[in-house]
């Protein structure tokens, strides 16, 4: 076996991955799904949502920011244990009460990863009380509107949506639960339809919505109507 292959186990299953790959992707390569919100293929991980938390040799780590290193040879990784799944369900519940997530009136409903994760964990009602914060909507750019009520502050849009020169269309202001996503109005004035669509698809929730599109997929045909989140990755 070549030097850069690392052996480890996830929930007892033998896994092999290349050194340098992140643990989230390594699990996927080995046919194991780890829940995620803020992680995105080919983008530097941020580790901001923490739903991908796994235990590596008994220690809690965000799978997306944990690289596969030589030290991981023989590591024991826990993923779908009752304790971790309970913690993940709690993260989903906290995200639901922290923002204003009105699923029935949201254009992203059915394609929303937060909602799909709640279905995965069979969340009937969050165990925490609702915050109902007052957050502003920015609909001043021509292609998209930004509804911060639905934002889960994963910063995916900042990391992924850039122009040819690498300038981000989005930026954040303040930190923690006060974090607000803002949009560069000058750049966004000339945003292409394709990039607007990519921005909407990149957002795990309905915080970035394309204008003049709305509810274009009928109920029953949306991404998570028939299949739980995760199955779409493991089929590939």
């Amino acid at each position: 076996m070549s030097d850069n292959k690392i052996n480890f186990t996830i929930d007892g299953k033998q896994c092999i991955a290349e050194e340098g790959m992140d643990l989230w992707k390594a699990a996927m390569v080995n046919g194991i799904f780890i829940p995620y919100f803020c992680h995105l293929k080919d983008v530097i991980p941020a580790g901001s949502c923490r739903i991908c938390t796994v235990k590596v040799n008994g220690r809690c780590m965000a799978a997306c920011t944990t690289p596969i290193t030589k030290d991981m040879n023989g590591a024991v990784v826990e993923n779908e244990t009752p304790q971790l799944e309970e913690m993940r369900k709690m993260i989903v519940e906290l995200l639901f009460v922290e923002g204003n997530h009105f699923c029935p009136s949201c254009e992203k409903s059915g394609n929303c990863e937060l909602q799909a994760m709640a279905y995965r964990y069979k969340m009937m009602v969050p165990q925490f009380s609702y915050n109902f914060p007052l957050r502003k909507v920015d609909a001043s750019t021509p292609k998209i509107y930004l509804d911060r009520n639905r934002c889960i502050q994963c910063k995916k849009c900042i990391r992924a949506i850039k122009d040819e020169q690498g300038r981000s269309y989005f930026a954040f202001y303040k930190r923690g639960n006060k974090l607000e996503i803002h949009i560069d109005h000058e750049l966004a004035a000339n945003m292409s339809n394709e990039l607007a669509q990519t921005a909407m698809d990149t957002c795990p929730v309905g915080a970035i919505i394309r204008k003049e599109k709305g509810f274009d997929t009928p109920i029953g045909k949306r991404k998570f109507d028939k299949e739980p989140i995760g199955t779409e990755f493991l089929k590939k």
Partner: protein
Amino acid sequence: MSKAIVATASLAGCFGCHMSILDIDDKILQLIELVEFNKSPIDDIKEFTKMCDVGLIEGGCCNSENIENLINFRKNCKILISVGECAIMGGLPALRNGIPIKECLDEAYLGGPTTGICNPDKIMPNDEELPMILDKVYPCHEIVKIDYFLPGCPPRAELIWEALTALLTGKEMNLPYEVIKFD
């Protein structure tokens, strides 16, 4: 076996969840074999006449009447179920949460685009017969103890049927993935 007694109410809701209860097709004949309705818009019984086994609540609490009604249901029902998004998290009426109540009323009665024609005297409804509007719309479980939650807008008829029959017959619920949805 004596029939279980069911009561239903629509608080700050649109009656969509009640429509979904009626959407169980021919199973409605089985339902009538299984339950007897007490206070409910379905049979138009206005007051509780006996203790009920199950209370189904649609809608959240947006005014003082909703609160009284909900507390009354808690007192008269052994099991209380929040049915639908509005009962669970306030739903669409709760879109006003976060906006001060004065701003909401001013927009509705004084500053709205049609109020100049419809309300030239700029009257704000203040009759004592009218229930007091609350500062925000509250989910039912933030007012009284709720035993079970059925999400959806409305919850699928299948979900309501499965939950009710599981509760009344003691059999286990077997729900496919498609049945639990928030929209």
